[in-house]
């Protein structure tokens, strides 16, 4: 198999309950740009069961030239073995030159599993993707060592070139009128569906907002002093319609539960708007949030690291500043 036999840019669209998820449209934005530069087609692959037909059409409307959906009851939820068998089948049949997926819990599990078996190069959690002019290779840029460096990586002589892309690091593609494309719906054959992992239950988050999907994130740091003070920040988060996150200190002291942790040993978030109060900005925390679009910080220490990555800061006591801020935001919201 020659390298030139591999053609086209592919994205892995994700579905939940048969509905296409936001990350898919973000990947279309990325994929469209790459396909344009590479002068090739963009295809979305998706695995699931009874996937909403309008949503599949929406993938076309938002930039895909083709959609390949593989469906079976066993594909309703992500399971690494059947999903990777399906992706490997697609690689074998269609020979994509580039496959990009979200750096989600699904993408970050499925892609490495597939890349090994496909003998492909894979780069994790990229924030910038580009095409190298001279060679046509995919250039993948990602933060490493806690965000201290950016590394640009390529896969010169293996195909496909695979990458996961940090969620929310680009805008979702919009619908354009008059787009047409082919939708191929395939029933996944039983030889692809064996799984030694079984989903027996799902416990949904109690919070209304998922931290990684939120447009606005309010983060609490050690400056909150004790767990009883968390409602002060929750009120601000509610006023901003934001998800509430926290630095490691807050989690380790048991003031909030682990799924709220932002940073190197917690979650990576890229919201439109991040507001940190009482967060000092340790290198580990910054690694989890510094790609946010706008960063605002409130901290008593004028030299706190968080101000180095912030767009706006108030040097002050959160217990004095936050209640007034919450009040003002509530006023603005209610007058709208």
């Amino acid at each position, binding site marked *: 198999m020659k390298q030139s036999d591999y053609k086209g840019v592919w994205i892995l669209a994700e579905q939940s309950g048969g509905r296409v998820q936001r990350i898919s449209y973000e990947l279309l934005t990325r994929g469209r740009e790459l396909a344009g530069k590479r002068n090739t087609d963009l295809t979305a692959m998706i695995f699931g069961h009874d996937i909403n037909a309008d949503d599949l059409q929406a993938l076309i409307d938002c930039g895909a030239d083709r959609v390949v959906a593989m469906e079976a009851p066993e594909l309703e939820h992500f399971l*690494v073995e059947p999903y990777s068998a399906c992706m490997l089948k697609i690689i074998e049949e269609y020979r994509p030159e580039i496959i990009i997926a979200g750096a989600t819990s699904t993408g970050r599990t499925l892609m*490495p599993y597939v890349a090994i078996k496909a003998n492909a190069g*894979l780069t*994790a959690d990229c924030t910038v993707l580009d095409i190298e002019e001279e060679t046509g290779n995919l250039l993948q840029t990602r933060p490493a*060592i806690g965000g201290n460096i950016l590394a*640009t990586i390529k896969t010169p002589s293996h195909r496909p070139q695979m990458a996961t892309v940090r969620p929310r690091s680009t805008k979702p593609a919009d619908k354009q009128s008059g787009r047409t494309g082919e939708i191929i719906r395939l029933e996944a054959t039983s030889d692809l569906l064996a*799984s030694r992992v079984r*989903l027996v239950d799902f416990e949904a988050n109690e919070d209304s907002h998922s931290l990684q999907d939120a447009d606005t994130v309010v983060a609490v740091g050690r400056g909150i002093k004790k767990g009883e003070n968390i409602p002060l920040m929750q009120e601000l988060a509610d006023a901003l319609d934001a998800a509430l996150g926290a630095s490691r200190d807050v989690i380790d002291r048991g003031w909030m539960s682990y799924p709220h942790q932002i940073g190197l040993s917690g979650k990576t978030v890229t919201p439109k708007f991040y507001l940190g109060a009482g967060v000092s900005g340790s290198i580990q925390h910054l690694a989890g949030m510094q790609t946010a679009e706008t960063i605002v910080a409130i901290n008593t220490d004028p030299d706190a690291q968080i101000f180095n990555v912030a767009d706006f800061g108030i040097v*002050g006591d959160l217990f004095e500043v936050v209640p007034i801020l919450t009040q003002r935001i509530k006023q603005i919201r209610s007058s709208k």
Partner: protein
Amino acid sequence: MRIIVPIKQVPETNAVRMDEETGTMIREGVEAIINPLDLYAIEIAIRLREEHGGEIVVVSMGPPKAIKALREAIAMGCDSAVLISDRAFAGADTWATSYVLAGAVKRIGGYDLIICGERATDGDTGQVGPGIASFLDLPVASYIGKVDSVVEKSCRVHRLVETGYEVLDVELPAVLTVVKEIADPRLPTLRGKQKAKKMEIPTWTSGDLEVEPDKLGLNGSPTRVVKIHKPTVARKCEKLIAGDDESIVVAVDRMVEFLKEKQLI
């Protein structure tokens, strides 16, 4: 029950200093530690052994000095260790690293579980755990926050995803990658440290593993680092001091104005 825990020695992230000119990491004087996320893997392995009996083999691929990380794992309570070290492994990306570690796991053999930290704090890819599973053709369950039970040849786990927890039944042998909430890592005991000091830790080279030479290290790695650079911080922080009542109101007013300009509220 036999558990294998692959670990990585990493520079302590707190102490990382960057060469401003070249954008590379200054390694001199930076302490090398066990990847903090691997401590959770070691801890849950110890707890599972305490409950079910068996043994824990800890394995690391790295330079000879990585033996220190293995001794620390023994001091915490692991039973034996193997260092995988060979110049031929240098420059390995996650593909070639997974390949060698899978080779080492194969040679150790007889395992029920392979437990990894979710990712390493230096490379930060999270790809090696699923990679080992793929080479060994084992199921993998990632982002595990809780092991509910291990019964016969199956375990029930909680997997942390964006919208909640999946409860999964996983057939053994399997690979788990675990997150912080799984267990609070214990400190090494004095007895553990003494045991670790005396323990003979074998070093396996490529010749000790069933691996093909052209799949090792940089040569075996599909990816290449083209460029390393320092991120440019384009943010200029507008910083206001809020001390007395008046300045607090002024600062909040200005913040609200700023957020309106940005169309964030």
